[in-house]
Each structure stands twice: as structure tokens, then as C-alpha cells.
């Protein structure tokens, strides 16, 4: 297990280093230069020279990369947002927990709904319920989240006033959680897309588990159908879902960008969109970098969970 952990940590570190290099390079290939992007097309030559000196853009590229790494690792400095007039790290620190709350709750919600749905489809396979759920999951998979979000707003917030039009606008995570009426629609929107693919995957994983020898053995020794289904088949069918969860994290975080924009939820995704609207390159790259870090951490946790749940993984990696 220790060996597996070390290998996995090294892998994660390599990914993070390549991402740092990529972020650095992207910050330098902006057509017209970073100074023009920050100061606007009508900035004077003097202003641009001053900006370049202040940000070390006049130094050799290797020196710049060294300084960038040093600032990032030692001072957690990701640049300065000229639009918000604040350090990028400060802004992200305030927004990141809110996105984690949004993504966390919706993922749990998606699992709670998708796993029973997949099991139900296997129990009633090739019956109307199975076909209807398959059709519905295809539609939800094809539905852009912003369309679903808008439709939910139209029916549940504007026509019927059951939930709020806008996501909670609180400054802290506590304030956001204390307004569940406003939180419902964003969570449903973000969960719906994941539910579609999770339940499909759960269905095929469960279907495969039902054909395994241990299920036949369990039946032969006299275990009831309920026990076979929930104890023998379900527990094994859940293992691939843990991997799927790890692999889906980038998609879920991407979905959060759209969901946050639709509901004006003050998280990282909305921040990235605001940064894009204002061509605030340091902030934009900062959000992309931190979102990637969160994703790498999430996949790492999923992989470790996978190894804990399924001992074969640990032995195979030796």
C-alpha cells in the first residue's frame, strides 16, 4: 500500500509540474503580449515598459520561469488581477470553498440517485422501466447544463416560485449553506448530467457483476435474491464506480463553470468567466491552475479509495 501511495503521489506531482509549465507558457504566448492584454490596446509605450519591468517580463524566459516557480511555491503568488485590483491568490481563496461545496453536494446527490437507478434498471432489465430510464439518461446526457438550468429557473422559480432564481449570494460557506431554497436548483442542474452517465455505467457494471461466478455460487448456497443483489452483486459493482468518480471530476468541475454562470453562484467557475470577460489573463490562468490542482487532488483521493476498496489494485501495482 505504501509503495502504491508513493507511486501515485509522484504521478500527481509530475502532472502538477507540467501544468505549471503550461500555465507559464500560456501566459507568454498571448498575441500582443501580456502588457497589452492588461493595459489595453491604447496603453503608452512607457506604461508597457513599466508593466514589463514590474512583472519581470523583460528578463530572459528561463529567469522568468524560475521567478514564477519561486513565487508560486514559496509565496503562493499567482499574479495580480488588474481588474479586481487584488492578488489572484486572495480572490481564489475566497471563491474556492464555495465551488467545493457546490461540487461536493451535487456529486453526493448524483451518487445517491444514480446507484439505485442503475440497480433498478438491472432488476427490471429489458422491461419498460429500463427502456424509459435509458431514454431519459440519453436526453439528459445530451442536454447542455445551461439549458437545463434555464428551464429549471423558468418553471420552478419564475412560474411557480418554489425555489429562488439566483444561487445564494452569501460571503461565506456558512451563509451559502443557510439558504437551501436558493441552493436546490444549482445542485440539481449540476447533478443531472452526472446522474445520466453514472446510472448508465452503474447499469452495465451491475449487469456484469450479475453474470459472475460468485453470484452463481451465492445463489447455489441458497442466498435469497435480495441478498444476492445487494450484498454480492452491488458491492462488487460499486468498485468501478469509484474509478468513474475519479475520472469524472474534470467534467464535474467544468459543469460547475456553466452552473455557476447560469445561477450567478459566486464560485471559481463564475470567477473564470468574469476573468475571461475582462481579459484578466493572470486571474484566468490562476483559476485554471487551482481548478486543476483540485481535480488532481480529487482523482488522487478516488484512486486511493479504489485501492482501499479493491485489494487487487494494491497487489497488481507492486
Amino acid at each position, binding site marked *: 500500500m505504501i509503495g502504491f501511495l508513493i507511486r501515485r503521489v509522484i504521478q500527481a506531482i509530475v502532472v502538477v509540474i507540467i501544468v505549471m509549465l503550461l500555465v507559464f507558457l500560456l501566459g507568454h504566448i498571448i498575441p500582443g503580449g501580456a502588457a497589452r492584454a492588461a493595459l489595453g490596446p491604447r496603453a503608452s509605450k512607457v506604461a508597457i515598459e513599466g508593466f514589463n519591468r514590474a512583472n519581470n517580463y523583460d528578463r530572459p524566459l528561463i529567469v522568468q520561469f524560475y521567478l514564477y516557480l519561486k513565487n508560486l511555491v514559496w509565496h503562493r503568488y499567482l499574479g495580480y488581477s488588474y481588474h479586481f485590483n487584488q492578488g489572484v491568490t486572495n480572490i481564489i481563496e475566497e471563491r474556492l470553498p464555495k465551488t467545493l461545496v457546490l461540487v461536493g453536494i451535487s456529486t453526493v446527490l448524483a451518487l445517491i440517485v444514480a446507484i439505485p437507478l442503475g440497480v433498478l434498471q438491472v432488476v427490471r432489465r429489458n422491461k419498460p422501466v429500463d427502456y424509459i430510464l435509458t431514454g431519459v439518461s*440519453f436526453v439528459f446526457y*445530451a442536454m447542455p447544463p445551461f*439549458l437545463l438550468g*434555464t428551464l429549471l429557473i423558468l418553471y420552478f422559480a419564475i412560474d411557480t416560485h418554489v425555489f429562488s432564481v439566483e444561487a445564494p449570494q452569501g460571503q461565506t460557506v456558512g451563509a451559502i449553506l443557510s439558504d437551501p431554497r436558493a441552493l436546490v436548483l444549482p445542485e440539481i442542474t449540476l447533478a443531472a448530467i452526472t446522474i445520466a452517465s453514472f446510472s448508465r455505467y452503474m447499469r452495465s457494471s451491475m449487469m456484469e457483476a450479475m453474470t459472475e461466478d460468485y453470484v452463481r455460487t451465492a445463489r447455489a448456497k441458497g442466498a435469497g435474491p435480495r441478498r444476492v443483489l445487494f450484498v454480492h452483486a452491488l458491492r462488487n459493482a460499486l468498485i468501478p464506480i469509484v474509478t468513474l468518480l475519479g475520472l469524472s471530476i474534470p467534467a464535474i468541475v467544468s459543469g460547475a463553470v456553466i452552473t455557476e454562470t447560469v445561477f450567478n453562484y459566486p464560485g471559481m467557475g463564475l470567477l473564470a468567466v468574469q476573468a475571461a470577460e475582462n481579459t484578466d489573463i493572470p486571474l484566468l490562468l490562476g483559476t*485554471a491552475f487551482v481548478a486543476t490542482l483540485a481535480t488532481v487532488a480529487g482523482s488522487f483521493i478516488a484512486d486511493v479509495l479504489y485501492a482501499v476498496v479493491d485489494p487487487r489494485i494494491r497487489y497488481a501495482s507492486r
Partner: protein
Amino acid sequence: MPPGEERDRSGSAWSDVPSVEAVGSPPPVGAPASPGGLGPEGGEAVSTGGMLRQIARVFKENKLAVAGLVVIVLMILFCWLGPVFYHTNQTNAQEALVSSTAENAPPGGQNPLGTDNAGFDILGRLMFGGKNSLLVGLAAAILGTAFGALYGAVSGFFGGWVDAVMMRIVDTLLSIPFLFLLIVLAVIFHPTAYWLIVIIAFVSWLVPGRLIRGETLTLRTREYVQAVRAMGGSRRRIVLRHIIPNAIGTIIVNATFQVADAILLLAALGFLGLGIQPPQTDWGSMLSDGVTYAVSGYWWEIYPAGIAIVLVVVAFNFVGDALRDSLEVRLQQR
């Protein structure tokens, strides 16, 4: 990831087919593929006739796939031939208003699907924007899959440290939430339709790259590849003439899903205002414009584009699922 990660086919059209070989028409006598004929040398070119027949059979058996194909063809006809019969002005709002009833006009009369907030006829705009959505979706998927296939084949064929480095790059890019990557690229390279194709392809080559690499790892140990090596065939020849043609099934199946995903990605960019820029438009940008007004009760400004996106994406997924089923049967036959 497409929803139908299906390995079980007990419920599909295949279950009542006793033997796939028995269903297909027998190969014509003296066909090039027969041993001793003048056909392609071992493994050089896949007999595409057999594969096309296989695909045709999939569509014969699978009604959902036929429905999907019909939707795709109709949608292409609608977007490219539609404007020939249904003239509307979609680039100049002033002129568009002359033939429209008013801005935000409900469906009916002169404008069967109503008009949008600038006075553009929505039915005409659906064709106008659909061209961009379908074109960018198809082109980005083809470009991304082609590059991914080549990358994967090279990585898998060379193996060793080349493979390790090439695959770490894929791992890294895959762990960046793709929408963040798209936004960064769209902001840095102010997107035109052509740039959008490249940008979306840049995100969508990763999955096919990894898939084809996996396939190459098994293909390169096959006898025919070893034979070419023994005869002194160049690496380039092996990759381009032997490995890629033999992985073509996987490549085509994946490309189908990539089209659906590319259309969704373009729609997402359009919604964020980073898609195709005015006076051009796409279905995602149409939705984005419509959302503000749908809240004021102008429901017809979001449904047409929304339904068009969902229809096309579901259609490509149905076709992809059916093709994958046929590929799996092909693999079982080997």
C-alpha cells in the same frame, strides 16, 4: 464519457442473431480477400468492403441507429438546403426587421418560430447558426480524432520512454477541467470559426489518443506487424499502413462520440459568449441570447436551439453506440 458504456448486449438487437456470419451475404467468389488472390498483403489494408457491410447491417438491425442517422441527415439538409427555400436576412438586423413582424414576435404568421430580440427570424436563424454548430462539431471531432489516433499509434508503437513522456502529457491535459482549458484558449486566441475548430480539437484529441495507444499495444505484437518489421518495413509504414488501418473501427466509433461532445463544447462556449462572434452565430450563442428574454416570457427564443442541440447530440450517441456494438461483434469473430 458517453452514457452507454455497454458491455452487455442481452437486450440489443444482436441477441436473436445466432451467428453474424450467417446473416451477412456470402463474399463473392474470387473476391480480393480470398487467399491466393491479388488482394492486399496480410494486414496491409483492412478489407473495407466487409466493414462497410458490417456497418450497413448494424443500421438494418438497430432502429435507434437508423433514427439517429435520419436525424443527422435531415439536420444537415435543413441547415444547408433550408436557406435555399426559406430566405431570411440573418446578418443585418435592420433589413431583417423589414421582413419580420417585430422584435420578440411570438411564433406564427410571417415567422413560424417567432423572432428574437434583434428581430431575426428564428427558423432562419436556426439554419444559419446550425451550419456553424454542425461544421465546427464535425471538423473539430475529425481533426481531434485524426491527431489523437496518430499520436496514440506513435506512442504505443515506440513504447519505452517515448510512450511514457507522450502519455504523461495526455494525463496532464486530461486532468485540467476541459472547460477551463477551452476558456483560456478562447480568450488568448480571439476565436473565429476556424480557431474554434482547432481549440475544440485541442481538447478532444486526448481520449482517442489514449484509446488508440491501448489498441496499438496489442496490434504491434501481431504476426503481420512482426512480418513487416522482419522484411525491413519502415516504422512510418508500419504505423500508417498497418496499425492505423487496423484500429480504424475504434477510431470511427470514437469520432462519432467526439462529434456529439464537440457540439456540446461549442454550445457551452457560445453560452459563455466565447463562441462564434456576431454577426455569425451558433446554436449555443442563440441559446445564450435567448436566456435573458425567455425569463421575460419569450419562451420561443430558447426551445428551438435547445431542442436542435439535444436532438443532434442524442442522434450521434445512438449511431456511436450501434457502431460500437458492431465493432465488438467483429472483434469476437476474430
